Each structure stands twice: as C-alpha cells, then as structure tokens.
C-alpha cells in the first residue's frame, strides 16, 4: 500500500481513538495499530516487535513523525504526555481514497470500539498479551501466555496479565464473529488474521 493511502487509514484510526477516548497519544496508536494490522488484517505494512510498553513499530513511530511534518497531525500538551490531533489535511487525504477507506472502515471501527478509551497501561497489557498469544505462545493455555507476559514485562503483575490474555481472547473471538457476520451479509472489508482460542482448541 502506498504511503498516502496508508496515512489515510492511520489517521482514520487516530480520529476514531480521539472520539472514543478523552485523548490519543503515540502509545495508544502503537498498540491499536498492532491490533488493526495483526488481528483485523488491514495491510498497514508496519513491522512490530516487543519493545516499549509492548508491541512497537519503529516504522510506525517514524510515520507518525512524518505525518506531523506533513501537517496531518499536531502535538498538543496533556497532563501525561502529548496527544496527537488530526488536522483538516487528514480529511482531504482520506477523501483521495474512498475505495480503500470503505474497504477497511469496519475493521478500524472494530478496534476503536474495543480499545478506544482504554488507558495506556491497559493497552500495554492487552498489546503484550496479544503479541504473546499471536506470535510467541500461540495456542497455549491462558496461564502459560500470562506467565510469558510477566516474564517479558516484569512490571505487569501475573493477575493483570491473566486478565489481559482472557480479554484478548474475547476480542479475537468477536473479531471472527464480525467477519462471519460481514461475509453472511455479503459485505467485504473485514479480514481477521488471528486464530481464536476456540479455533485453536478445535
């Protein structure tokens, strides 16, 4: 996907997060974009590794900086960090790609619905739990995945890690259900790329 098309999708995600929650900083974008790409299958093309506060993409970090340089995002102060605010320029860029926006609108909306408004500390846990569930300990029981989360991020207590793994399983199941509903109703544009706990057990 070319850069501007990607920017259109990314800024739509940020707009959604700003609307759903009371603010949206870079950490919110990093974690939710990971779900958008890896759970919903939207081809944003970022490479994620486990790094700052869970899944993190250096490419995405650079792109957010570039979007500020291009006037599509602005930084505004907050009590805890700075928030990313989309500008009018985003509306113009999104308007260039009506087909792409329509194709991925529901997938982005799903992630905004499930994760928008969550605090960064919750997103850190959920993002890490999803990274572990999807990449490192795929198909393993909850306690093994939770232990891995705590081993990788010792500041996350085991109980919170377990809750996060369970919530990620629920979100993944809902993503599959949304996809199936979309297919039944003849819609396109919802793609999931993750196997749920149920599918793993089958």
């Amino acid at each position, binding site marked *: 996907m070319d850069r501007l098309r990607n920017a259109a999708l990314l800024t739509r995600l940020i707009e959604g997060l700003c609307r759903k929650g009371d603010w949206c900083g870079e950490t919110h974008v990093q974690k939710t974009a990971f779900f958008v790409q890896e759970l919903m299958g939207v081809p944003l093309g970022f490479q994620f590794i486990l790094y700052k506060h869970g899944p993190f993409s250096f490419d995405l970090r650079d792109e957010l900086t570039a979007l500020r*340089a291009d*006037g599509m995002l602005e930084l505004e102060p907050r009590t805890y*960090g700075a928030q990313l605010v989309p500008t009018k320029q985003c509306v113009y860029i999104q308007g260039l790609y009506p087909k792409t926006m329509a*194709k991925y609108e529901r997938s982005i909306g799903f992630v905004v619905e499930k994760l928008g408004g969550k*605090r960064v500390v919750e997103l850190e846990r959920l993002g890490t739990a999803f990274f572990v569930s999807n990449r490192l300990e795929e198909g393993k029981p909850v306690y093994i995945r939770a232990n891995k989360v705590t081993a990788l991020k010792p500041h996350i207590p085991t109980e919170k890690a377990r809750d996060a793994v369970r919530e990620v399983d629920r979100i993944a199941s809902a993503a599959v259900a949304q996809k199936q509903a979309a297919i039944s109703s003849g819609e396109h544009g919802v793609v999931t790329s993750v196997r749920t706990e149920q599918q793993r057990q089958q």
Partner: protein
Amino acid sequence: MPGNFHEVRDPIHVFVRLDSEERRVLDSASFQRLRHIHQLALTYLVYPGATHKRFEHSLGVMELASRVFDVITHSESISDRIRSLLEPLVSSDKLRYWRRVLRMAALCHDVGHLPFSHAAEKELLPNGWDHEKLTRQVISSNAMKSIWNSITPPLRHVDIEKLAVGPKNATDLEFTDWETILAEIIGGDAFGVDRMDYLLRDSHHTGVAYGKFEHYRLIDTLRILPQSNESERLQEPALGVDEGGIHSAEALMLARYFMYSQVYFHPVRRIYDIHLMDFLKEWLDDSVFSTDLEGHLRMTDNEVSAALREAADAEDKAGHLHARRILGREHFKRLYEWNPDDVQLNPESGRAVFRALSERYDKDQIRHDRYRQGSGAPDFPIQMRDGRIVSSLDISKTLRTLPVVSVDRVFADRSIFDNAIKWVNENRDEIIAPEREEAGNG
C-alpha cells in the same frame, strides 16, 4: 596509568581510556578498518574540515557509554521500585559484566559500516542486509569471539550484538528491560551516546557550532525511571532525566535539529551522496558490496576513492560520468524542494515532480532525494524535585514544538536545469496533484 590501561587523546573527550582487552578490539582488523571510513561521507566537499573517521567516533561512544552507565547505576540514583524490576542492579558481578559488554558494544557499534558510511546502504547491499547485520557478523566472527572468550568471565557475543545494534535491528532476539535500557544508552532515540558523540564531533570538525550542547550536565542528570510513579500508569523503566537536566536535554534535541538542517541534509552534500551511490552501482560487481567478512574488511573509502579518481579520468571506466560529477564538482542542482503550500496539496509532491520530469527528460538527468526524520517526539520521563515523574512533552514546550526534519528534493543535471525548472514552474499544480482513487465499495 597502570600497565593494563591505555590512553588515546581525543579532541572531544580529551582522553579516552581503554583496558588491555579493549585495546585488543581496537587493534583488530575490523576496528582498524574504521580509520579509513569517513564519518560524514563526502561532506568534506562542502565542509572541508569534515574529514574525521568512524574510528575516533567509536572510541568516543565507548567513553560516553560508560559515563552514562556509571551515573545511572549509582546506588543513590536508583529507587527501590526500579531495583526490584532490574535484577542486575543488585549484583555487583552482573553490573561489572554488563559494563564491560556495554563498552565493547559501543566500541564495535559501527564496525559494519560500508565505505563512506551511510551513503545509500540499502541500495548497495543484497536484500536483507544492512550495516547493522554486518556489525553483528563481525562481532560474532571467530576473530572477535577469541577476544570475548579470553575475558574473565567470558562475554557472550550475543549480548554484545544486542547492545551494539539494539532491538530495532535484532528482531530475532528477545530483549529484557535491562538489555533494552543498555541498548538505549548507545543507540537510543532520546539519549543515545552515539548521537551525542556524533553531534559534538561533527560540530567540532565541520565548524558548525549548532551541534554543541551541555553533555556533561545532561549525562550527570540521566536516571532510570518509570514512566510514572502512579500505579495505574505506565511503569516500564526507561532512560529519563532529573528536573535539573531538562534544559540540557532540550539543547541536545535542538542541536540534532540544527545539525540535520545545516549539515547532514545540506543539499550539495546530499547530491554528492547520490552521485556516489550511482558511481558505486556501476563500479561494484553485481552493483552491491560484498557481505562476506573478508570482502567487507578489505573495502574502505581508500579503495573507493582510488576507483573514483581512475574512473573520472577515463571515459571507458565504469561509473565515469558519476565520478566526473563528483571530482569535477559538476553535481546536479536543486530544482524542486518541499514547501508547505505544495504539501497541502500532496505530501509526496517531490515524488510527483520527479516522476513528471523523468517522463519528460532522460532519467539519468534527474534525481529525487526523500528523507523523513527517523525518530519520534522526544517523550521521556522527568523526575521532578517534588518526587513526581512527568512526561518531557508535558512540561517542555520546546520539545513539543521542535520542528521535524523533512527533505523532499529533486535535482537536475545542469544541462537541462533552466529548461526543466521553467517547465515545472509553469505546470506546478498539474504536476503535483495527487491521483484520486475511483469511488466504490470493496
């Protein structure tokens, strides 16, 4: 000095001190090669003083890395919470081990650089290779492993690789929080000593004073901090500063901005880099540098410079035209540059101009240079005097409003320049208008 210590004089840090094991690394073929790799590629064609090499920069990075390590691991600088999260902090043996790994990693962090440093390494190496991968290859070579294994206790080469290239460039390895922080000391976005040293050193050698900042003060105020001291906020430890270091941190970020604007992205420096890349593509076998260790060690700026001279003088030599452009100072001229009005219409306006010109003229007469700043907003924790931990972006307007470096330029051969710039100016809106996708669902 005791017999097992060695001193190297340095224009930035006065003395850099090494022990005998570090001296063995310094004497190795892979490190000595850095004596022949210019830190700033062909920048000396614009700033004549910029003839310094990766060799002295690497020594400077080692010196600064251990200064930072000593400050942030000092017992009085560490809270109980951080101590409970980072296990090596409570073991003097482990601290000694990691300090040594850090210094070796700092010393070796650039050993994989190609001739003339960063000049277009993506296009001049086979797919999947970059200088960080070459660095890891050198660190894990038999020659280097014999040094790591001779040390008591032996150093794990994987640990040195991790800290030398960091999580971004070692995605196959898992990093603990401790290893992440140590890697940040060298290559971190906010307080990496690689950047601290190159800003100070490049500033010194180019004569561009913008790169100087109060690094002594900054290093003394660095701390390992959680992102917040409120339990329901982010707790992951990271490098931050005491409140007293805010202005030094701001000065570092400003130095970076000015050096990028004034030196690293000087348009003539950039076009020389592009001409050099064009030359190398024609001159090298299969258009790429060797990734074989022996081949890598053999190739330095000296070999490339000799080939440039030879090619510039003989029309039948590979790369003749590009070599002449460099040595004859016949570089292409800047025809188009990113500007706020055009970006409103198309953030990729330079690419659009480049495409249009490439269709109208011979492709070899047009070049495009696109660079976007490779780092995020400078967000790091700050420990306030009242004990609170806050975000740098929360309290520093300077950091929040720091401009982002973005380069989008098109260059043209002098023979078509006047004609081409006239054509672009007459057709600008049409040329830069972005393509619109057809509406439709799915």
